[in-house]
Every structure is written in C-alpha cells, then in structure tokens.
C-alpha cells in the first residue's frame, strides 16, 4: 500500500460562536481517489479552505508529504503540490485563457512558463482552441475545465476538486470525470468534494462523510452509503 500523503489530525474551525468543523481525523494515501461528501453546510468547503491555507488559523494540524503545513501560506502550499479548484470557477477575468494557465506555470516553479507548456495543459482539458479567448466567452463546463487546468498546471501531488461538476449536464459530468480519472492515472491523488452522487460513487475508492462539521463515516463507498446515519443526514430524517 502507498504511503500516506495527507494526514489531518483533530482539525477544527470556529467562526465566532459557530463551530463549522470539529475533530476531523483523515488520512489519504498517495494515488488514492477519495470522495468527501456531506449535506450543504456540513463543513466540506471549510475543510478545503483550512487545508489550502485560505483561513489563517484553525485548530489541529495537517501533515502533507511528511511535513507539517502549519504556518505556510496558500501559495507556499500550492508550490508544494497541494492544488485546489474553487466551487464557483474563479478565473482571472482580465487575462486570456492561456494567460490564466501561465500564472501557475510561472509561479508554481515546476515547469517553465512557455507557450508550449501552457498549450499542453489546455490540450489536456480540450481548451486549446480557446487559448486567446477571455473567460467571459467560455461556457460553464469550459470554465470548470479551465479551473482544473489551472490547478493541474501546478503538477500537484494532491488535487482537491471542490464541486467541479455542480450544475453540469450528464455528458459534461462524464467529460470532467474522465479528466479526473486521467489525472489520477498519471499519479495525482484526488479528493473529490461533490454533490453529484453518481460521479462520486463512480470515481471514489473510498468515501468520507461530513455532517454538521464532524466526520460520521469513512470507508468503502458501498458500506458508507448503506450506513443509516449517512442516509439520515442525506434524506433529512
């Protein structure tokens, strides 16, 4: 079995008096495909933001590739191979598609920021034909692909795909899924945060479930989905 690439120990986050996340323990192995699910407001995005360094403080600790992440800013984490996409695509609106990719290439420090490297990233998500367009000229699914291309341009060891498929059609979901499978086959560990259950079950080797800021289940997808507390959280009973 592969080594552990990410370990979260007792991670918690409070906003004022509201506890968004508490006592999260999670281990992810290199090359794994993990699905992280839970109802709205269960703390999935808060977890992502803590892990990616978007929040400056939280309880507990993360260890990534054997090194603690505490004290590292977002961009330092990104350079160490921890990439994320945003729930709502956040392209650089003033930059063309190819320039959007040049940013992580120039600052990620893993590849030269050449046009060839940028085009290669775009070809991988089938956006090469739109290289000189602006983000506002792209469709929803193209924006999601751009978001993924920008993350993968960092050549990350771990990718957190935060609801990369929400609101997409059946075939579009399949396209994004294929992309993530390809990425995983080339060695990237993927944490998929998703509401589209068909995609999560098809993709994940393991499922972790958050409810009200706590992890209530962690295991093989079929077992987890059969658990009564998971069913309860999802059906609201």
């Amino acid at each position, binding site marked *: 079995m592969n080594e552990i690439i990410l370990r979260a120990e007792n991670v918690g986050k409070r906003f004022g008096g509201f506890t968004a996340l508490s006592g999260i323990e999670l281990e992810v192995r290199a090359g794994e495909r993990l699905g992280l699910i839970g109802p709205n407001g269960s703390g999935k995005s808060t977890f992502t933001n803590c892990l990616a360094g978007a929040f400056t403080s939280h309880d507990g600790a993360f260890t990534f590739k054997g090194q603690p992440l505490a004290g590292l800013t977002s961009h330092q984490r990104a350079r160490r191979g921890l990439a994320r996409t*945003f729930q709502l695509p956040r392209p650089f609106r003033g930059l063309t598609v190819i320039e959007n990719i040049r940013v992580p290439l120039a600052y990620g420090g893993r590849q030269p920021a050449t046009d060839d490297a940028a085009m290669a990233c775009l070809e991988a998500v089938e956006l090469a*034909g739109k290289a000189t367009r602006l983000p506002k000229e792209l469709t929803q699914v193209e924006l999601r692909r751009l978001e993924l291309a920008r993350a993968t341009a960092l050549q990350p060891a771990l990718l957190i795909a935060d609801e990369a498929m929400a609101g997409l059609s059946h075939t579009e979901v399949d396209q994004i899924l294929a992309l993530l499978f390809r990425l995983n086959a080339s060695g990237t560990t993927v944490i998929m945060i998703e509401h589209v259950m068909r995609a999560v079950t098809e993709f994940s080797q393991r499922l972790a479930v958050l409810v009200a800021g706590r992890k209530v289940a962690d295991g093989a997808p079929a077992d987890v989905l059969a658990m009564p507390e998971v069913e309860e959280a999802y059906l609201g009973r």
Partner: protein
Amino acid sequence: MSETAMTALPAPAPPRRMGHASFWLATAAAAALIILALRGIGSEYAYFAATFVLQYVVLATAWNILGGYAGYVNFGAAAFFAAGAYTTVAAGKALGFGLLPCVGLAAIVGGILGFGTGLLTLRLRGAYFAIATLCLSVVLQTAVTNWSYVGGSRGAYVIRPRDVPFGFDSYGGYLCALAVVLAAVAVALARTIETSRLGLGLAALRDDEMAAEAAGVPTLRLKLIATSISGAMMAVAGAPLPYLGSYVEPNSAFGLAYAVNAIAMPLIGGTASWAGPLIGAVLLASLQQAATVTISSAANLMIVGVVLVVFVCVAPHGIIGLFRKRI
C-alpha cells in the same frame, strides 16, 4: 480530438512582442529625438511646458504600476510626489546635493515610504487601502507643515545653480532633458514589469487574490514590490519640482491636483497597458497647460474632474480600450 480542433481552429498566434532590450533601445532613441527637437525650439516656455507634461508622465506611469496592474487605488500620490520634492529641499540644504543625487535619494525615500505603506495597509482590500493612502497624505503633510527646517508652512526657496551642467543652453533646458530621461525610464520600466512574470502575477491578483494564491502567486510580496516601485517613481517625479518653480510650500506640493491627475491620467488612457498613462498624461497635461494660459488655473482643474467622470462612465477601459476590441 484536440489535434483536429487545433488544425481546424488554429489559435491565432499572439502578436510578436518586442523584446525588453529592443523596447529600452527604442525608448532611448525616442527620448534623444525629443531632447533634440526641444533644443531646436529652444524657448524657455517650451521647456517649461514640456517639463510640466513629462513630470505627469512619470507620476501617472508610477501610479499605474500599483493602481492599474495590481488594482490598488492610491489616493495619496501627492504625498509621494511631495516626499520627492522635499527630499530635494532637505538634501540640498543639509548635504549640499545637486539635483541628480537628489533624484536618486528621492527614489530611495519614496521606495521606503511605499514599502512602509504597503506593510501597514496591504492586508486591506480595495476601498480601505484607498482611504489609508489618503490618511497617509494628511499625516505627511502635517509633518512637513510642522517641520521648520524645510520651511514649514511658509515654504522653501531653492536657487537654481548659476552654471548649467552638461552644456545645456539654459537650466530650464537641462531640467527638461532630465524630465525626458525620467519619463523614458519610467515608461520602459512599466512596460518591462507589465510583460514580465511580475506583471503576470500582479494581473492575477488584481482579478482575484484568493485564486492567485491558489495558483502559487505570493500576493503579499508582489504587492509590496509594486508599492515600493510605484512609490519610488512617484517621488522621483516630484524631485525636480523645487527647481522648476524655485519655490515649494506644503499646500502646493501636496496639492490635490497631483492626486487627481495621477488617477485621472491612467484611467483616461487605459490602465491595462504602459501606453495608457502615457497617452492620458500627454493629453490631459497638455490640455491643462493650454487652459492655464488661456483661461484660469481653477478652470483647468475643473476640466480634469469633468473629463475623469465622463471617461470612467462612458469609456471604463480608457482611450486604449476604445481601440482594442478584446477588452
């Protein structure tokens, strides 16, 4: 599939950009031509008017490095400009420095001031940063007004040296040539930043700081670099001011005319590229210079205000944006 898409829809190759070295050479050639042309006209008024316009080219270009590239609005341009002017006064009085070393010193003072402002305020977003720079301007003006060594509220006189350096026909001609050189350097520097890795990072953080961080951009460091360079250049723009009028006092050096022009010129020209502030500064400063002669000095400030408001409403991407469909 991507292969066919590529051949069917050949991505239009980005227009070949001029390299950094060729651009600096071209700017130097343009500067030399302008100096020669002005020498040909040879009138003191032409020198004065050209210097007036060129100091605004430097100021507007400097403002745009932070305001246009990084998207942080600095309302305190006048403070940096005045810091440069007063560096000249203080260094001239205390150390007997001539204008050239004062320009270098002003760059250092402005850079430190910019760095300090950045350190104190760049964790603030948008409007808060703008307001903080406005406050900085008031604090600095209060300090200078109370600093009797540089004349306090009464102002200070600076006497032009009798002998004109480098074989220029008059001191006005020398000041004007210096202004040409400073403007050329400012424009070339801005263009270099714009087309470099730094410019790409600034453009990314201007659009979305969180996404820029996630893409590996060290946003805080880049912003500090931008405030320092921008501050240094604005102070350099102000350094020759005492020699231009032979007299400075806080109310004029910190005058709102500088602050509003520094903002209006890039916005009118277009903030996305080095050419924007250049075009805006040349147009607006020439207009003001003409209005000062023909109408009154208050009226020319009115022109700036009206032109600014009309432009941000009707042409939010400036003159350059009107010609460029892409934006």
